[in-house]
Structure formats: structure tokens, C-alpha cells
């Protein structure tokens, strides 16, 4: 093999047949079938008279972690070609990524180059643990990856390939293989891709459907095809003048319409986007009368807002209050949970989620764990308070109550139990929990109103702190503690020009970790200001 006739002039720079090699890197999350698509690509190449070599790093790396497969192929010729064992930055022709952030990882690792790389990926996300455990919103921003993909790749082909596979009863390897075929980057006909799938012999029909869907989805060169992402910013929400579609007794519907009319008559347009869903939430939680109470609160808020110069601020204070007052009024008590769990629409949703066909039955088990606090919460205020005040009694009762309960809501017994609890709505206003929630709400709203008079943005941030209160039992207690700690900074911040910015930062910090370590750090900083 020491003959040198094939050697090019060193100055020529490139060896003639080097460019015939096609190099593909496949980035996947362990368990996503990266091995399947790799073996398909090898089969495809061999089927077309090419020499193919694949390598991978299986083992522990595959257990839900990021992993890379690699294939090189070259037209069959004399002797065995010498091919690379792993992808090298700047030296990859095709990158397939089964998940959006893995496409990002490919870019980060330098596998995507502007002069040669076709980047094919699924825009669907498989979230990493670090994104899920954040108490707030920890989901990584997709935009930088999308932009980088367009900037760095020679050609991008991306679509919701995971979703397409699911819709066709298959898995991502099939739709991704379809996208590879659809991109036209390999010199092989569509039929031979399909033959490869057929030869694999498992779930062929579904795989072929997913393949076709993937093929069609990436027909646009340099295209990232995805549905418009959901927006949650209040100012982007278009007001819906008609209001939610509603059914029920005529009298209630008229009362409801009156509340809607009141929103349109009394409140600035800027706040409608939050007032409408807010009103719906509280009415759904309790009754129309409760909706009226909601609007009464907001009317007072609007007065304060106007006095504080809200017009110039786009009535941000009112809109923010519309959101968080609704959340505060529709607190999570046992009655609400029982009500939500026994609704007809809920059973329909569960059936759809588990994809049950009409011939199949669905049995539903709820995982409940009430504590004495929850039970006392739905007792008449004085009684509940009386029990909780007696330590010995509380302890004994808690031992009886505080245990995990599995409730089968598809059975008559389980359903009726929860239905009965849900039917306590009418008496809710007299419960201990309601009293506690109202007191808490009023105190917070007063602080916000007092604050907004001197510092508009700070007042808005006081409202936003309500976001910290969520969860049940211990988590709820922790959330409330964070809320208190954040608001404890308001007196310290008052009068500072950057007060609102600081409070905003505190809220963000409180959402970063469970125990509030970052929040403590931020609070310490504030005390030294």
C-alpha cells in the first residue's frame, strides 16, 4: 500500500476523491432511536452501492443523555476506504438533530459550517432536567438556536418532526429519515429510502407514513417550519369583545353579559386582555356575584391607577391587577380541585390525552393527600380556627386525615365524594380558607395601591409578586414565605429611582430555586444599598 501514484501534488491542496465522501453526524437524546436511523443510513448507502461506515458511543451515554452517531459513505471502489471515526468540526456535510437544542449543540460543537453543512432538525423540544426543575419558567429560549441555524448552516431544513411522527403513530427516527430524504442532500432516490424502511420489518406502515410526513415538511430550502408559538405577554393579546362562549340559566347569562358590558364601558381597552379571562376565571371559580366583586375591586384599582397617572403608563397597573387579583380570588382550595376533577369536559380531556378509542374504557385514579389544614380550610371559619388553635386535638385529627388517598373518579363512590365536595361552592364564602385568602388579598392590594401613588412601576411590581404564590401544602407555604420576603423589601426600596428594577430582580431571583437561596442573596445586597 506504499504506492504513491494516487498522491496529489501537495500544493493542489485537496485530494481529488476526498470530496466524494459524505459525512453525516446524528445528534440525539438517548432513547430517541439514533441507533435506528444510523443503521438505516448505512443500509441505504449499501443499497445504492456505496461503502458506509458508522460509529457510535453507546453505553451509559445513551441513558437520556445527549449522544452522537456518525456515518461516512463513499462510492464503492478498489480497496477499503479509510474513514473517520468521529465527526470533526468544520468537516461534516449533514447534521441530523432529533431535537431543537441538540441542533444547537451541533452548532456549538462546530459541526455545522456555512460552506457545506445541511442542518436537518426537529423543532420539537425534549426538555432537559435543568429546564424543568426551576420553580419559575426555566425553558431555554429557542430563538437563538433558530437564528444561529439560519446563520451558520449552508441549508436548514427543520420542522416539527417529533410531532409528525406521533401523529402518524411512529417515532422520530422515521420522520427524521423522511426529512433527510426530503432535503435531497443525499444522491439517493426516495424509493430506496422507503425500501430501507420496508426491509427493517417493524412497524413499517406507520414508519412510512411518518417518513412521508417528514419528507413533505422540509421541502422549503432554508426553511424552519413551525406553528406560531403561544404568546403570553398581556399587551399582545387581542381583546375579544364578544367574551367567552357561555351556557347556563338565562338569568345568569344576563348578569354575565352585564359584567362584560361593564368592562367595555368602564375600563380602558389596554386592560381588557386581562380583565376578560380574569372575570371568566373568578366566575368559573365561584359565581356571577363573585365576578361582580372582582370588577368592584378592579374599579377601585382603576381609580388609583388614574390618580397615579396610569393613562401615560398604558394602565399597566390595572391590567396587572386584573391578572393577579383574578388568580388570588380563584385560590386553590379543596372545593375547586373537586369541582375541576368532576367536570364532564375534564373526562373528555383525559380520554383524549390517553388516546382512548370509544371501544376502550378509561379508569381514573386521583392521587389526593389532604392534610388537616385543608379540611379545616373548608369548615366554617370559627370552627376551623378553633380546631387549629388546639394543638392536641389538631394532632389527633391530623393523624386521621393526613394520608394519601386514591380516589377512583370513574366509580360512583369516588365520583360522588368529589362531586359533593365540589358542590360546597355555595357556602365557600363562609369557610376559614376564604377568610384567610380575602384578608391576604386585601392587604397585598392595599400595599400595591399605596405604593403606586409614589412610584408607578414599583406598584406594578408589588402586584407581580403575587406570581410567587402557588402550589399546595408545603410548596404553598414556601411560596408565601418568598412572597413575604420579597415584599419586605418594599419599604427599603421606596424612594429609590431603581426601586422597581430591584423588586423585579427579587421576583426573578425567587423563581430561580426552590429554597430561595438566590433571593436571600439579592435581599442581602439590597440591605447594603
Amino acid at each position, binding site marked *: 500500500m506504499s504506492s504513491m501514484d494516487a498522491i496529489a501534488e501537495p500544493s493542489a491542496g485537496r485530494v481529488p*476523491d476526498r470530496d466524494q465522501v459524505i459525512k453525516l453526524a446524528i445528534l440525539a437524546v438517548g432513547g430517541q432511536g439514533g441507533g435506528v436511523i444510523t443503521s438505516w443510513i448505512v443500509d441505504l448507502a449499501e443499497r445504492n452501492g456505496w461503502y458506509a461506515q458508522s460509529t457510535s458511543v453507546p453505553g451509559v451515554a445513551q441513558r437520556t443523555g445527549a449522544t452522537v452517531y456518525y456515518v461516512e459513505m463513499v462510492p464503492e471502489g478498489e480497496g477499503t476506504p479509510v474513514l473517520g471515526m468521529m465527526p470533526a468540526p468544520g468537516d461534516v456535510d449533514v447534521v441530523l438533530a432529533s431535537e431543537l437544542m441538540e441542533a*444547537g449543540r451541533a452548532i456549538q460543537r462546530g459541526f455545522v459550517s456555512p460552506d457545506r453543512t445541511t442542518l436537518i432538525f426537529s423543532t420539537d423540544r425534549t426538555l432537559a432536567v435543568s429546564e424543568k426543575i426551576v420553580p419559575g419558567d426555566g425553558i431555554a429560549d429557542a430563538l437563538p438556536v433558530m437564528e444561529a441555524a439560519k446563520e451558520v448552516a449552508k441549508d436548514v431544513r427543520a420542522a416539527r418532526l417529533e410531532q409528525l411522527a406521533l401523529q402518524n403513530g411512529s417515532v422520530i427516527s422515521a420522520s427524521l429519515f423522511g426529512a433527510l430524504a426530503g432535503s435531497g442532500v443525499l444522491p439517493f432516490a426516495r424509493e430506496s429510502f422507503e425500501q430501507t424502511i420496508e426491509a427493517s420489518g417493524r412497524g413499517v406502515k406507520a414508519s412510512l407514513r411518518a417518513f412521508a410526513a417528514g419528507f413533505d415538511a422540509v421541502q422549503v430550502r432554508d426553511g424552519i417550519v413551525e406553528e406560531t408559538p403561544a404568546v403570553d405577554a398581556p399587551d399582545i393579546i387581542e381583546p375579544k369583545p364578544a367574551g367567552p362562549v357561555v351556557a347556563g340559566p338565562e338569568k345568569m347569562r344576563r348578569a354575565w353579559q352585564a359584567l362584560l358590558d361593564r368592562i367595555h364601558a368602564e375600563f380602558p381597552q389596554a386592560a381588557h386582555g386581562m380583565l376578560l379571562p380574569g372575570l371568566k376565571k373568578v366566575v368559573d371559580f365561584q359565581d356571577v356575584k363573585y365576578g361582580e366583586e372582582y370588577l368592584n375591586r378592579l374599579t377601585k384599582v382603576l381609580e388609583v391607577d388614574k390618580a397615579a397617572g396610569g393613562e401615560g403608563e398604558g394602565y399597566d397597573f390595572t391590567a396587572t391587577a386584573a391578572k393577579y387579583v383574578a388568580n388570588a380570588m380563584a385560590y386553590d382550595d379543596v372545593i375547586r380541585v373537586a369541582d375541576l376533577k368532576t367536570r364532564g369536559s375534564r373526562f373528555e380531556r383525559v380520554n383524549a390525552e390517553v388516546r382512548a378509542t370509544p371501544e376502550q374504557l378509561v379508569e381514573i385514579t386521583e392521587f389526593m393527600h389532604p392534610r388537616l389544614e385543608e379540611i379545616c380550610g373548608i369548615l366554617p371559619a370559627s370552627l376551623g380556627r378553633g380546631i387549629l388553635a388546639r394543638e392536641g386535638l389538631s394532632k389527633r385529627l391530623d393523624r386521621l386525615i393526613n394520608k394519601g388517598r386514591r380516589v377512583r373518579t370513574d366509580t360512583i363512590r369516588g365520583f360522588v365524594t368529589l362531586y359533593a365536595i365540589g358542590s360546597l361552592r355555595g357556602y365557600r364564602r363562609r369557610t376559614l380558607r376564604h377568610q384567610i385568602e380575602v384578608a391576604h388579598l386585601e392587604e397585598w392590594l392595599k400595599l400595591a395601591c399605596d405604593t403606586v401613588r409614589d412610584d408607578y412601576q414599583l406598584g406594578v411590581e408589588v402586584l407581580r409578586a403575587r406570581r410567587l404564590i402557588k402550589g399546595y401544602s408545603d410548596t404553598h407555604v414556601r411560596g408565601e414565605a418568598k412572597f413575604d420576603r420579597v415584599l419586605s423589601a418594599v419599604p427599603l426600596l421606596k424612594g429609590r429611582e431603581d426601586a422597581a428594577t430591584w423588586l423585579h430582580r427579587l421576583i426573578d431571583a425567587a423563581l430561580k430555586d426552590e429554597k430561595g437561596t438566590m433571593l436571600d442573596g439579592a435581599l442581602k445586597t439590597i440591605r447594603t444599598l
Partner: protein
Amino acid sequence: MAERSFAKEVQQLRIGEGEEFRGEGILAVTKALLECGVGYVGGYQGAPISHLMDVLSDAEEILEELGVHFEQSGSEAVAGATLAASVHYPIRGAVTFKSPVGTNVASDALANLSSGGVTGGALIIIGEDYGEGASIMQERTHAFAMKSQLWLLDPRPNLESIVKSVRDGFELSEASNTPVMLEMRIRACHVHGRFIAKDNVRPTMSLADALENPKRDLNRIVLPPASFLHEKEKVESRWPNAVNFIKERGLNEFFGGDGKIGIVLQGGMYNGVIRALQRLGLADIRGNTEVPLYVLNVTYPLIDDEFLDFARDKDAVLVVEEGQPNHIEQAFGAMLHKAGVDTKLFGKDPFPIAGEYTGTVMLDSIRGFLLENAPGLLTAADRAPNRPQTELPDLSKTVPPRPPGFCVGCPERPIFAGMKLVQEELGEHHVAADIGCHLFSIMPPFNIGGSTMGYGLGPASASAFNVKAKKRPISVMGDGGFWHNGLSTGVTNAVFNKHDGVILIVDNYYSAATGGQDIPSSRADNKSRSTAHPITEAVKGVGAKWVRQIDRTYDVTKVRDTFREALTTDEKGPKIIVASSECMLNRQRREKPQLAKAISGGERVVKPKFGVDEDVCTGDHACMRLSGCPSLSVKELDDPLRDDPVASIDQNCVGCGNCGEVADAAVLCPSFYRADVVHNPTAWDKRMAGIRRRVSSWLQKRRDSRRLVFAAEGA
């Protein structure tokens, strides 16, 4: 039941002379063993050679036909000791394990084997777990070859070379009466390629022949005075014999032309070096190059005169040797010095001292070497590359890290959720972790475990903490580690020393981390192995008194309570908790096809799946911090009143129950529900469901008629 089945692929092991084999590296090795007339094979699983064990296991029928004995060794030490069958008898044997960890475990046996020497060819196939994807400390096997003076092959990573190396290895072993190690790097094990096969050969002497006609030779036993003779024998006869064989048979290869510079490389580095030369325009796709290459398919022993002949008339030689320390480069340096040759030697400069030789490292280092020593070979562009092509966009803050973790439905997740809960009550404890899937506990969301000292050594690594204190140490090991050595090093040792700590044994019915191989406590029926030996019986057998068996790890409350008891009981001695549930990956692989068949056959089948009521979930993600299940994720709701995404369970959910149990044990929230889908319901099922539905929908209608009901859409 192993993670991957090779039942189809192993049929290729039957092909004969002249036929073409296509497949993975490890399968090619198996075929080569059969072509070489191997008499017995053994080994212990572990990446990257787990699949080699699985292949052998799936090929048992073919092995039997040829009269080849296959043994799934209890540990690498067992595998190493198995080669003792080749000491007195001319029977070829091969064992396999991952390195260097397996080599560490086996090194006592290998040292004894090397001392006495072998008669039949003895081959140790080493899966080198180095570089990207490695799950162990980064060390070199090379030092083992040096210390025990056994030979190390490092073939070029293509199937033809690997297969040839197996053949060469047996012959070299026999020619020098020395065991031989064949090193396969992680990617070479899984490389897909091809080679032309030969016929399989039956072993010339069977193990039964040997048993019936036993031999012994005092000179081969490691005991003075023979052991002193062995040391001499190694240098006086075995080494020279090996060197002669390697030279005569041309095991090392020379490529390229004559030139003033040259590259010496480990065989395993060949493709990487050629790729770098291809990128520099100095090699073609078939590997033809003008640059002189000396490829060490044998990296130990080194052949002095081969190297000196290669280096003597050159200005500079580059050694491509991955990993550190740079044993080969040092040896070459000494050779040049002693021979008075002034060729300049390069190695760890320009190459980095530590780390994998990736494509970029190869290209940059070889270019650097050529630039300094033979700039004429490089193009102008490579001599002075215009670096700042395009700046890579910085995605380091966007792309989240994605380390490996527990699979969907993994039964080990609830164990660590339970531990996390008990630590919330009793405070943080010292936790000695171990090798195995359970080591994923050290990462978020659990953050449990502070050390690993080696497979099965979790409890042993808590030995020092046998003192009076307000907290007890907790140590962990898996069932794999337990049978590997943990029973003696962990449990027996703890009983003997009256250790007061808590020992958790995670029993998932398999050696799961290595791909689901059976072990003594497996519950599966295994035709060729004896299984179903309970771990609790074993620990009681060695004297443990406080032993608890948890038979469903998904019962988080029970796990938590058992831990609390173990950490607070007054009872002396080790507190042993055996937490058992089947590895979900394996269970799914076994049950899925069965269930699908039952459903299509019209049988009544209940399939569980978990869900979250999104209007009940408040988006605090407390459940995620006790789970980390890939199937339990978060999603954004199209609701302007919500700031944070809510929990959501995707289609991959296997209904293990962890979410619901955690929500219950930690008193999290009532959002979780289990939906059991009844396939092919019976007439009775349907009737009951009909009655229930009538009652509930009557009640629902009654309630809806008394309040406002909003349509699902709109807000």
C-alpha cells in the same frame, strides 16, 4: 434479557471461507474467535464490550455446535482467572471486559497468569473506555501490559485489521507463552464495516479432554522458586520470542514513502491520522500517502530496531499516542538516546498531554508538526490558515447540558425521591455512591451521593465512617455490584466490623447499566444460568440482622419510612435495605410485544398512563424536583393569566406511578391522575361503565344547569 438482541446478526457467525461479513466490530471479533478455533470464552459486561458479551450469549447455540464453552463470568477477576485453562493445556481461550476498570479487577489473576505463562493462546479483549462517552476515570491499559509483561495489540480500527489481530494475538501468545491483550477503542467496538470470512474451526483439544487427562507442571505455578524463574523467563525467552514473531510476521505496518519526517502511531489512531492527512491534502481516501507512517498494531512490546530503522535517517518523528503518561514516546526517547541517534522526537508537544485525540486535535497537532519540520508539504493555506472564518454563535447560555440520567419509568428514581424526602426531615447525610445506573442520583434533581470508589465498593467506601456520631453514613450499590464483589467487600466486611451504617442495595433484576444482563438475583428464567437467588438470603447468610426488602420501589412512602427507620433504629450492625423493582427498559422490551399481541388477540388488557390536570397544576414544579422523569415535562399554556409552564406527561409514559406516589408522599398537589385504559373490555366492564357514566353525567348536567359553563376555547 439483554438490552439489545443480536439473535439475527449472529447468524453471520456461520458464514464460511470467502463469504463477506458485514456488521459491527464486536461481532467481527466473535467471528474471528471461531475462525481461530477458540476452546472457551468468558468475560464480564461493561461498555464498550457489553455487546460482545450479548453477542456471545445470543450465539450460544452456534458456540455449542462448535464445542466452544461460553461462560458469563461473575467478575473480571473471574474472567482473568478463567484463562488458567490455557496454562497447561494447548487450548485457546479468550475473555473480555472493559478497561481499565475491569483490568484493575482482573489484574491479580492476569499477573499470576503472566508469571507462569501459557501453553494455549490466551487472549484478553479489552474494551477501552476512553474519550467521549466514557463512564469511568481516564487511564491507560498500557501500564498493565508493562507491569505484568503481557503483550498489547492495538489494531487499526477496521474490521479486516481487527479480525487479523485476533488471529495474530493467539499465535503471538503461543509463540511467546504469554497472554495477549487486544485493545478495542469505544468506536472500534461499534464500527460498522466488512471483511472476508474464513471457515469456523473446532478447537483441537476440548476442555473435556483436558479434564479427563489432567496435567500439572510445578514450573508453571507461581510459588518460589518457580516465580523467580518466571521473571527471568519473561526477559530471556518470552520477550525475545515475541519480538521475533512480531518482526517476522510484520504485525506492525509501514506506509508512505521516504521522507525526512515520519509519524509513529498506535494502530487505533490510524483513521484519525489519515483523516488529518486527507484534510491537509497529503492522503487519499484509500489511505495512500507520501508521509512515512509506522503503525504500531502492537504497542507493547516495542520493537527497538524497527523504530530505530524508521527514525534513523529522518530529521523528526512524531509519536501519536493517546492518553497519558506517554509511555511509548518515553521509550522511543530512550531508544534514540542509547543508539546515539539525533532525530528529533515529537509527541505530547504538539499534541496535548491529556484528552482524546479528536479530529481537531489531530489536524492541529499534525499540521503543527509539519509546519515546524516539513513546511514544504503544506499548502500555503495550511501553512498560514486564515483563521477567523466565521465566528460561531455563542449558544453556551442557551443549550442546556444533557447528562445521562434515569430512563422513563426507572424504578431507581423513586428510591432517590424517598431518600431526598428523608433527608429533608433528618438533614443531609454522607452518601457513598457506587458505579451503576443509580449513580445518576448524584445529578439534579436528586443531588445525592458524594463519592464512587469502584464497582460494588460503595459500602466499602463508607468503612471509615464506623464511628459514634449523630448521623449514620448511607452507602449504595447495585445488584450488579453486589454480586461482582459487594457481598464480601461491602456487606460481609460491614457485618464483621460491626459497621453501624445503612447499606442500600438497588436490585433491578439485571446488571442494568451494562445493558440488562442476567445476574444471580435476576428473576428471569435463564436456560443456561441459575437465577432467582435473593440478595436478602445472601446478606442474612453472611450474618446481617437488620434486613428490609422493598418489593415495589415505586412506593415512595415506604421507601422514605424504611430509610427513616434505618437511620434512627437502635439496632446495631449494618442496616441493609434491598430495594427491588424490575429495570423498566428491560420490562418494556419484554412486555410491550406481549401486550400488543394480547390486545390484538382480543384479550382484556389494562394499560396505565399518568396525567396532570393542567388547571389544577399551579406550575411550581415541585414534582420535577423529586422526579426528573423524561416523560414528565412542562408545557406553556395558552392562558394569559398564567406566568409559568405547567407539568405535563408525554406519550412515552409507561405508567410506573412515580409521579403519583411522589405527589402523595411529599404532599405535593392533587394534579396527578392515573388513567388505566382497558383494552377489549368485558361485557361486565361495559355494563358497569355504562351505569357509572349515567350517574355521573346526570350529576354533571344537574350542576351545569345551575351555573355558567364556559366553552373550553377562548378566554
